[in-house]
């Protein structure tokens, strides 16, 4: 039986609850034991485990220390979801004065300790596997747990959401109806949920970190603008769901 820890940083628990869903499958339950999770068990301190699932991004020093200690106690670390891999929607505040940000929400901003930056987990530690999504697809977690129990390395699939539309034989919302869609630049894995509901993908699985550069993003942005998506909206989506890649592209612009 493999021991599992579920750790949450700055996030919403959506991915953690997809993990809970994954553990409701009998063939998975029988091979794993949730050893540590503040949501599910009464264990206050994490001990050594086989697998640690980590949800959320790092926004204060305590979390940075915590994640390093999790890394040292877990044989296999899975970075779970857009926050852990890209930074998550909370990245939308990066670039603003942190005191302005605090002041807008809290009457007493001085009590709040938080970085002005938002760090993906993968910036602080080496993760053995990253499962994208906002939230992650629970079936991907099930698939990983089955695979881990069987042994062997995970198989990485590099493709965009477009590939999923093709497989599901969904009509392209952008070509057929002129709906702006981020599918071409977004990591696959969701089964093209938004196009299947007739709306454009908004990139919640994160912007592709492969086969994409500044010029391609620029050309694609122009096409989206022609279809009526404003530059602000485009920027908010790229930053909110693909912060790590977005910030790299904008850094490249500055140099």
């Amino acid at each position, binding site marked *: 039986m493999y021991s599992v820890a579920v750790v*949450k*940083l*700055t*996030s*919403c*628990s*959506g*991915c953690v*609850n*997809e993990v*809970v*869903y994954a553990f*409701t499958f009998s063939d998975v*339950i029988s091979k794993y*034991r*949730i050893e540590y999770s*503040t*949501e*599910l*068990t*009464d*264990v*206050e301190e994490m001990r050594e485990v086989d697998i640690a699932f980590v949800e959320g991004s790092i*926004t*204060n020093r305590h*979390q940075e220390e915590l994640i390093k200690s999790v890394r040292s106690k877990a044989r296999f670390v899975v970075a779970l979801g857009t926050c852990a891999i890209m930074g*998550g*929607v*909370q990245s*939308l*505040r990066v670039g*603003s004065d942190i005191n*302005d*940000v*605090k002041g*807008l*929400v*809290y*009457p*007493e901003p001085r*009590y*709040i300790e*938080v970085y002005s930056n938002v760090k993906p987990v993968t910036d602080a530690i080496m993760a053995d596997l990253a499962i994208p999504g906002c*939230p992650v*697809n*629970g079936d991907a977690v099930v698939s990983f747990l089955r695979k881990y129990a069987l042994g062997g390395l995970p198989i990485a699939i590099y493709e965009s959401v477009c590939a999923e539309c093709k497989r599901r034989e969904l009509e392209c919302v952008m070509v057929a109806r002129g709906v702006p869609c981020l599918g071409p630049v977004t990591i696959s894995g*969701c089964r093209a*949920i*938004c196009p*299947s*509901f*007739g*709306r454009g993908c*908004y990139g919640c699985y994160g912007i592709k970190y492969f086969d994409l550069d500044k010029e391609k993003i620029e050309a694609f942005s122009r096409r989206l603008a022609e279809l009526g998506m*404003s530059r*602000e*909206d485009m920027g*908010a*989506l790229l930053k*909110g769901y693909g912060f790590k890649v977005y910030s790299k592209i904008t850094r490249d612009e500055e140099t």
Partner: protein
Amino acid sequence: MRAVLTRVEGEGSILILERDGRVERVVYEVSEAPRFFEYLVVSKSIERVVDIVSRVCGLCGVSYSFVAAKAFEKCLGVDVDPEVDMIREALHLAERVKSHILHVFYMNLPDLVQAKSFADISQRNPKLLRNMQDVLLWSRKAMEVLGGRFHNVVNIKVGGVYRVPDKSAFEKLRKELDTVIKSFTEFASFVLSVKPFDEFAWNGNAKINQVSLYSLHEYPHHGDRVLLNGDEYSVTQFYRDVVKVLQVPYSTALHYRIKGIEGFVVGPFARFNQFYTMLSKEVRDFVEVHGWRPPLSNVVQSYVARIAETYEALLAIERYLDVFKNAIAVDSNSSISSRERGSVVCEYAVEAPRGILYHKYIASEGRVTVCSIITPTAQNLAAMSDIATTITQGRKVDDNAISIAKRIAISFDPCISCSVHALQVKIFRI
């Protein structure tokens, strides 16, 4: 003394202030890192905001998107087809089922049957586990059909939904529902039959202020009127004049008190106690057959309300699905044709699984300029602390006192990520 708060969503701890070895006061410390959603949505278009706010909470994201869409529709004068609105209501009730089932099974039940954790229960009673799985997995399917997925649904927009699901998908859900209701009642029957061991008596004189959304015709669901101990207010009036917000140094969540003094309870406990008569007869009979009656006097009995609400939600979804089976002939692709231009105030409230969720925006030219969100857990924090203090004050600071403080927290089903938008226990000598 300080202890980690476990079996709750998010990061927090229990702080016990101690005087001469006796409990003086119990405080719930929220250490969850803030995400500043009120800031994140500024300058974003209202369509984007409906998706972004869903990320405040993994457990109740539908409530967030739904209330935001409703708030914008109301202030912009956008009409929504009643049947399309029913799709969103059904989706919201499916989320209530998911949240309540997760809470009762994973977080509440271990205390009720004195088990170490859900794994222990699953081993002891595999049938109970299977029944729970049936309901949970069906709620997932329902959310996938109506909203696209289990968390951060994609089918809610200002003006309605992006797509009306296929008739065949509705029919399939409806067909499975009979078995699911059977699994649920078996599960619920077990839960309601457990004799709770009462290691602490509730002080009958302690008054608990209770607040839920006010509705004339149905069990509280969504709206813009609230009921506080029988008195009716508009949400604007209630959150502007009646409730005062306070920030405390030990918490990243804001606290709310009536006139800045008295705490109040929102959520299943308050809804059940104030609107019991609005539940279906079937649900009331089921509750009463198991020996329960309103009003629930002790917040640790909130799971009874959660069970009743889950049953009520399943029956309501059944009625909705019967309507949907007869095909909804609405084009969901109509664009927003707002009658309003310029700056508008948009506000609305919904009964999220844990209680009233209130959103207020100022929008101008289709973009948000100001946002204020009041979450259920943040509203409950003050009452949680007051109730735990009333019960434990003067007791010896020991494992028993800590366990009472933990149980009270768990019974509120706090959603700490929300409130900031595992508890630890600390004890301080004063």
